């Protein structure tokens, strides 16, 4: 891909949406990871760093000084506005107030963190008339590797059509420091969590499988071309298909003439 061209298209896309919605700027969750840093830079290039609000939303269990340092590096390099909110008290209030809360169920608990972060982002968006810019990439979106209504919640999601390995190239192109690009990606929902560890596959391999599926290749062809076990490719395909519910408008029963999410086909900005 021509990364300058991709950068141009994405910055134009962001700028256009902000202008059409008459928003005053952009708010994004800035974790210090490659996706959010790339989105922060694209946003700054699109509307100017002073109109981009990077929210750092750490919590004590996954607090990582290096990530905060990386987020600040981007804030300073691209002149963003930033704010740090420690979400620990909010999370602890959640844990305390749920009668059936079980700390050992780490996915349920971790999802509270992702959804709490979403609430912070939308608070800022409402208060300051900002657009929430999401940083989900295509690999995690296809795998359903995100929290429904959590980290994926946004008004626009500019890099959702780029696989993680492509985001790495774009990140390099837009000037994201090497140490951010090279560190292992993590949703930071519990200590020690890494995306590749949890997905059970390296992004280099995953993205090639997903690329094959995107291009309507059948699993045995993909396995043969990539010299992988067919079971692995099948497993990825199953996961992709079974997580469609996380990527679509709410499902309703078709009862009437035109139905939300089905056959209302209105223009959007």
């Amino acid at each position: 891909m021509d990364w300058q061209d991709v950068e141009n298209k994405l910055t134009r896309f962001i700028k256009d949406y902000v202008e059409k919605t008459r928003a005053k700027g952009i708010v994004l969750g800035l974790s210090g990871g490659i996706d959010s840093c790339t989105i922060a830079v694209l946003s700054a290039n699109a509307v100017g760093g002073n109109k981009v609000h990077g929210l750092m939303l750490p919590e004590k269990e996954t607090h990582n000084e290096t990530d905060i340092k990386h987020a600040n590096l981007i804030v300073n390099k691209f002149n963003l506005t930033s704010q740090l909110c420690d979400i620990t008290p909010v999370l602890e209030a959640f844990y305390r107030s749920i009668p059936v809360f079980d700390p050992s169920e780490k996915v349920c608990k971790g999802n509270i963190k992702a959804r709490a972060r979403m609430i912070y982002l939308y608070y800022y968006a409402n208060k300051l008339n900002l657009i929430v810019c999401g940083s989900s990439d295509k690999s995690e979106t296809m795998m359903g590797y995100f929290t429904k209504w959590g980290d994926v919640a946004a008004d626009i999601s500019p890099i959702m059509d780029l696989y993680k390995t492509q985001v790495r190239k774009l990140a390099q192109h837009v000037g994201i420091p090497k140490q951010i690009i090279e560190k292992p990606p993590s949703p930071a929902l519990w200590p020690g969590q890494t995306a590749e560890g949890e997905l059970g596959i390296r992004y280099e391999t995953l993205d090639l499988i997903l690329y094959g599926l995107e291009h309507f290749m059948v699993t045995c062809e993909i396995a043969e071309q990539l010299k992988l076990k067919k079971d692995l490719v099948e497993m990825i395909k199953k996961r992709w298909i079974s997580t469609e519910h996380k990527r679509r408008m709410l499902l309703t029963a078709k009862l009437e003439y035109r139905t939300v999410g089905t056959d209302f086909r209105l223009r959007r900005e």
Partner: protein
Amino acid sequence: MIMKQKFKLALAQISCNRGEKTENLKKIEKIVTKAKKHSVDLIVFPEMALTGYKVRDEIYELAETIPGPSTSIVERIARKTGKYIIFGMPERSEKTQATIFNSAVLVGPKGFVGKYRKMYLPTHSMFEEKRYFRPGYQPAVFDTELGRIGLIICYDIFFPEVARLTRLEGAQLLVCISASPAVRRTFFETLITARAMENTTFLAYVNLVGIEDGLQFWGGSRLVGPQGKTLVEAKYDEEDLVIGEVDYSDARSVETFVPALRDLRPELFDKLKESAEKL
């Protein structure tokens, strides 16, 4: 070929497991075996019974040529049981890799008989068939021991010319397989009867049931006689298997009572074509 004047058919109103051809084929076999006990000669399954209706992008992988691997399995079932079977499936053109038709297949005790490619592809409201399918261009009527059977599919029934053309090609029994959601029920219930009456022919309508992507297929499969009378009718919304009887001699009195085919005015069709082109 000796043709039966009178025979029984089964309307196999099923729900499908989307994307699971092997399971759906097993279901077809099970129902054919069950229907056999009722001495039927023909078992009709709904549109896209092989794969489920709303499979979206998976259709490219699910579609097969006709004849092909899945039709040969159904042929085997037909040979083994000595029955005729009609079912729907996505058909991939032999000449391309991603040109697909929404097809109906007819197999019989001696194997593959024929296929029909849906002519009218709904692409409005919740339907997106033109996105995936190429339309068919030919009516389909096949000589069988059960008379001349004509095939049409679902939305075709809204266009009287499809049933009419199939009838004029000699169909004595029109079979309409369908995947019609509940919001369309009242249209279909009227049109099924109308197509049978205006063509003075039997019409077997077999609809899907179950819920796919929020679409609730209403079932209500039925056999309508040439006088427009509903002879048997399946339940709404649930799987069902109903048996009806076709007796071609019933058509004679209707054809004399309301001789709609005798009174056809072919010259109007030229006018119709001209007007349609200018719509």
